[in-house]
């Protein structure tokens, strides 16, 4: 190829260990007894369940509906009976559970009705909705909903569509096998993406340690007769499959810290994603299976076409795990994460199950102090200063870590790989990142609480004011009424010499009298209870008491008792 290629900064050359799993073709997996399909498998919102325990589902039936602005649907991987919709342990280091649909396959593997779409005649918005509901997400490991990336940007077209077939991480070969065996169909998916993005050129980057894949893709391109598409063999160097690194190698564009490749007219998709877009658009099949490499401590490493939700141990058993197996790692040795249990399900993010043992991955040597040798900075493909990030993360100085572009770290592990002091640097970065996210959530919550508190205070003030106003208005109304009454009645004793002063007095007195009158009337109205059917005895007693009251009340009512004088 005559194309001029560029170099990215840093990178390492670990042993690839890829040959073992590429000797045999992709194999199918017998149906397991039970599929556990987590509803939350992609970046973004949690899809809501659309089925209930006891429902019968078809293969490809939607069981989780996309929810929120960024979310992707989830489907039943085979036909069968929904046993439960309940939390189940997910393939995540934390060992936490997430809401999952548990399906008991009926063995028929029967598809429901499939909707196909002609992408050339369908408006882009509808295509994106279709892909969202087909559950298509990035299969390179980031599981970002693909529909959200299939937007051509402000100019209405894209300069370069980069297809990532680099697959730089050791042990993983699922993209390699996909390109070898399904290059033609994958290419159809790429053409659909090219159409949606209106991309001028398409570059398929493949590391040069996969000559068969390069040849297969080139043959498929030649067979399709399309122009402007090129499969490019790039030098093998980890992490050439990082999006920014691959873009750099193929186009020479250096995406600066904190920017996105789309700002430069480039968008990047994984080859597996291209294939599932083909399946969704041309076959109407939603994303219900993916290729998974089983490698490491097994007798026959191989790639399998696996239904989403298949328990990992069911899959690994086919490859013959050795007796001393004590761990599964999802992903490769550089970026993979350890699974909390053996029976966690395969999800859309599972590109590889690396079976491990103590002998194969011995515990790392104890961490020693950083000697500031700078090896990590030389190896960092994101052009960061890993040791500075390490110092700030270690001392929990998260603000500083962010200033040094912590969030541009792709957690590739190159720095830990080269560090002579065996510092688990990436663990520190992951810790820092999740602490920063937690703080941001707390900050948002605090700001919301402050607003609500201020609003409540404001509301209480306003209510108090309103109440006071209402009272004042009522008082004014009564006063007016009394004043009006006073004006119509003849005012006895009103003197021309002192007209101003007695008037308010009189008004006040009238007000009090009015209130007293009202109270008297109310009292009179409140008839005593239990006096309807009384015996003559009780009646007589009451009459007696009333008479006595009259006598007592009389002197009190008389004005100016003699003692006071």
């Amino acid at each position, binding site marked *: 190829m005559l194309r001029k290629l560029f170099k990215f900064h840093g990178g390492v050359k670990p042993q690839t260990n890829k040959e073992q799993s590429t000797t045999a073709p992709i194999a199918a997996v017998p149906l397991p007894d039970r599929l556990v399909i987590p509803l*939350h498998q992609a970046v973004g919102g949690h899809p809501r369940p659309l089925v209930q325990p006891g429902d019968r589902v078809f293969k490809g039936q939607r069981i989780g509906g996309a929810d929120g602005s960024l979310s992707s649907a989830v489907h039943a991987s085979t036909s069968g009976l929904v046993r439960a919709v309940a939390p189940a342990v*997910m393939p*995540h*280091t*934390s*060992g*936490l559970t*997430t809401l999952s649909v548990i399906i008991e396959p009926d063995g028929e593997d029967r598809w429901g009705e499939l909707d196909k779409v002609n992408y050339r005649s369908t408006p882009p918005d509808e295509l994106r909705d279709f892909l969202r509901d087909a559950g298509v997400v990035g299969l390179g490991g980031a599981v970002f909903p693909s529909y959200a990336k299939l937007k051509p940007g402000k100019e209405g077209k894209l300069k370069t569509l980069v297809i990532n077939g680099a697959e730089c991480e050791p042990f993983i070969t699922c993209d390699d096998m996909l390109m070898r065996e399904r290059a033609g169909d994958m290419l159809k998916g790429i053409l659909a993406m090219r159409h949606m993005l209106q991309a001028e050129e398409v570059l398929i980057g493949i590391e040069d340690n996969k000559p068969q894949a390069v040849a297969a893709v080139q043959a498929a391109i030649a067979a399709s007769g399309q122009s402007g598409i090129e499969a490019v063999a790039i030098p093998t160097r980890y992490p050439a499959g990082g999006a920014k690194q691959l873009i750099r190698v193929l186009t020479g564009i250096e995406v600066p810290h904190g920017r996105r490749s789309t700002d430069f007219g480039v968008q990047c998709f994984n080859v597996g994603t291209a294939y599932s877009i083909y399946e969704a658009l041309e076959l109407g099949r939603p994303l219900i299976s993916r290729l998974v490499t089983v490698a490491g401590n097994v007798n026959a490493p191989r790639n399998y076409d696996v239904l989403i939700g298949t328990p990992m*141990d069911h899959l690994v058993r086919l490859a013959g795990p050795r007796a001393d197996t*004590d*761990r599964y790692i999802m992903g490769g040795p550089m970026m993979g994460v*350890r*699974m*909390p*249990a*053996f*029976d966690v399900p395969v999800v859309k993010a599972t590109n590889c199950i690396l079976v491990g043992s103590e002998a194969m991955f011995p515990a790392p040597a104890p*961490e020693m102090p950083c000697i500031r040798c700078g090896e990590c900075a030389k190896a960092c493909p994101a052009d960061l200063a890993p040791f500075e990030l390490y110092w700030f993360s270690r001392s929990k100085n998260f603000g500083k870590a962010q200033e040094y572009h912590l969030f541009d770290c792709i957690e590739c592990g190159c720095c830990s790989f080269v560090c002579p002091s065996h510092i*688990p640097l990436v*663990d*520190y970065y*992951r*810790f820092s*990142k*999740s*602490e920063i*996210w*937690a703080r941001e*959530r*707390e900050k948002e*919550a*605090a*700001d*919301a*609480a*402050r607003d*609500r*508190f201020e*609003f*409540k205070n404001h509301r209480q003030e306003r209510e108090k004011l309103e109440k006071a106003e209402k009272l004042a208005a009522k008082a004014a109304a009564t006063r007016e009424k009394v004043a009006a009454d006073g004006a119509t009645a003849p005012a006895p004793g009103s003197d021309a010499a002192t007209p101003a002063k007695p008037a308010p007095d009189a008004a006040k007195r009238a007000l009090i009298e009015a209130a007293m009158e009202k109270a008297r009337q109310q009292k009179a109205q409140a008839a005593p209870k239990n006096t309807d059917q009384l015996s003559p005895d009780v009646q007589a007693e009451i009459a007696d008491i009333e008479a006595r009251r009259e006598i007592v009340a009389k002197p009190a009512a008389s004005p100016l008792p003699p003692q006071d004088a």
Partner: protein
Amino acid sequence: MFTALFVMTGIALVLGAGLGFASIKFKVEGDPLVDKIDAILPQTQCGQCGFPGCRPYATAIAGGEAEINQCPPGGEEGIRKLADLLGREFKPLSEEHGVEKPKSVAIIDENTCIGCTLCIQACPVDAIVGAAKQMHTIVASECTGCELCLAPCPVDCITMEPIAETVDTWKWRYPVFQIAPAALDTARQEA
């Protein structure tokens, strides 16, 4: 000699005028220090610090009337941040004001609730919805966990539940405390 004096006086006058103008032109509304302190406080609005809310406490700190270690929800980290901001010495949380607890939300037992509205009046952030004689519910996402609604409830139907960790809120542990091996041992037994 005199020229020098004139020059110096002239400079002094010009700079003085400049400063005076700047102090008027760039006058900051409100008290920026109180805002900064308030931004650190957790906004639980629980009153454990002895003030009727976070902002009054912030004002008191800024005025030198309160210590920086009186806010239990803010915890040690909050005190550290305040110490950093104000250039004061770090102090452990003052015991008389309470202890740091895991973040919780209030839950109303909806079968016991008599709909008296007392909790609604107590809640500083309007996190409780309900009407007189109707069952009340707490909007968990708005609840700050201040516990102010517990005491007024005449039938004691409100309890505090610690917030469970989910995959979205899970945090990677500080590398020194590795928990993975323990989790895997149980996995091995199961397998």
